[in-house]
């Protein structure tokens, strides 16, 4: 979805690796390590050394492009605007992982964003780039706030039957932590939803969204994001292009669509494809089979194979052996 090697460098080397990847790698790998997931941590450290090289490329590439010709400045600025927003949307998954999925918390998404983005990028890098005429990414103000992780996990909770992982209601201690980390939003907007979900569970039921969500034409994420400054109203944007209506989740995604509609009309949106009959069949079990999901891969965490494994692995008698048997030839 980039327009060639230069946009690609700004997309990956700069906007993702430089601006946003610390938000992925540092809290993600710290979280893995803090929770005893050593394979992920090892993979993460290895990827991180690769990533620091990409960061160096990205910064050199952007400075080179900006220094070559002042006419490059508005072009590069638009690429930053576009790819910041696309990367930020992708990191929605990391936000809920930090705040909801780790059994032992490392730091909140809000704290990570403040440190790795607001302080290091908006406070450090962009003042340096101002010399070239580069401004902070368009729509960055819509990325700051307390709401992202809650909206994403609440969505994953109710679509968990098709998520390829298990979700559950945060327990009382976890909710207390969320309330402390998110004093302006959790108890007002999200705790009431969990309380209602809990009542269902107490009555022997479990809330699943028995349907398919509307998707954003650009980020392809379900339309779960709310209006800037109004966490109670879902954000709906649309554009008409060659007589067809296209739906976007935010001003950021709409700006990206309107800039290059020819690219995004081709999007292969899973929900639309399911309804065309291209994903195994018309029912949820047909589609899950087509995605090769097995029973137990998805759904409620409590009582799942995942939950049993977690308990088994944390039972002292199951501690890893001191040294695995070496494999001949290694």
């Amino acid at each position, binding site marked *: 979805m980039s*327009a060639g090697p230069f946009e690609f460098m700004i997309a990956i080397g700069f906007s993702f690796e430089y601006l946003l990847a610390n938000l992925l790698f540092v809290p993600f790998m710290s979280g893995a390590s803090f929770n005893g997931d050593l394979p992920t941590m090892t993979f993460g450290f290895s990827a991180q050394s690769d990533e620091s090289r990409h960061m160096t490329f990205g910064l050199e590439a952007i400075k080179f492009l900006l220094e070559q010709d002042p006419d490059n400045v508005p072009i590069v600025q638009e690429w930053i605007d576009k790819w910041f927003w696309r990367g930020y949307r992708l990191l929605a998954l990391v936000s809920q992982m930090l705040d909801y999925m780790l059994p032992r918390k490392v730091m909140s998404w809000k704290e990570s964003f403040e440190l790795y983005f607001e302080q290091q990028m908006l406070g450090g890098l962009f003042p340096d780039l101002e010399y070239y005429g580069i401004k902070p990414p368009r729509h960055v103000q819509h990325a700051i706030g307390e709401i992202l992780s809650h*909206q994403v996990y*609440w*969505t994953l*909770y*109710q*679509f968990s039957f098709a998520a390829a992982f298990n979700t559950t209601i945060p327990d009382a201690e976890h909710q207390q932590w969320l309330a402390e980390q998110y004093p302006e939003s959790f108890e007002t*907007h999200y705790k009431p*939803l969990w309380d*209602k979900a809990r*009542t*269902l569970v107490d009555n022997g039921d479990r*809330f*699943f*969204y*028995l*349907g*398919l*969500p*509307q*998707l954003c034409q650009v980020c392809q994420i*379900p*339309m*779960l994001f709310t209006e800037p400054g109004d966490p*109670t*109203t*879902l954000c*709906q944007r*649309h554009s008409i292009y060659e007589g*067809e*209506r*296209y*739906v976007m989740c935010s001003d950021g995604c709409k700006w990206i669509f*309107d*800039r*290059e*509609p*020819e*690219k995004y*009309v*081709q*999007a*292969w*949106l899973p*929900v*639309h*494809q399911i*309804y*065309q009959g291209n994903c195994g069949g018309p029912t949820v079990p047909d589609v899950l089979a087509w995605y090769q999901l097995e029973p137990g891969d998805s759904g409620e965490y409590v009582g799942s194979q995942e939950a049993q494994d977690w308990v088994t692995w944390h039972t002292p008698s199951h501690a890893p052996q001191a040294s695995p048997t070496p494999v001949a030839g290694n």
Partner: protein
Amino acid sequence: MAVRAIGEYTFPSRSRQELYGDDQLVHVWWKGDLWFAATACFRAPKAMSWNDFLANVVYPLWSCDPDFDAETTKLSWAVDETPIAPSGEESLESLGVGHKSLISCQAA
């Protein structure tokens, strides 16, 4: 604004209406209630009556909300932000619902 390309760059929409025959995609949004975390997307015949659409397409999803009661929950409706007051027998098409339209409702 258009894409800048070195050659012809024209591709059809992968979600265009003709791929759905006599049906179309319809989005339904219950405004101001976040129990359903995201707006819904359904496939429904253009000629389907409003009552059939509610009873057979929308309510099965909404029954996942323990507070929803089709008899007592009073809602006001809009299609693509234009208010509508359906009596029930009209087709979706005659109510102005097009492909990928947004049907929204609010507690009346």
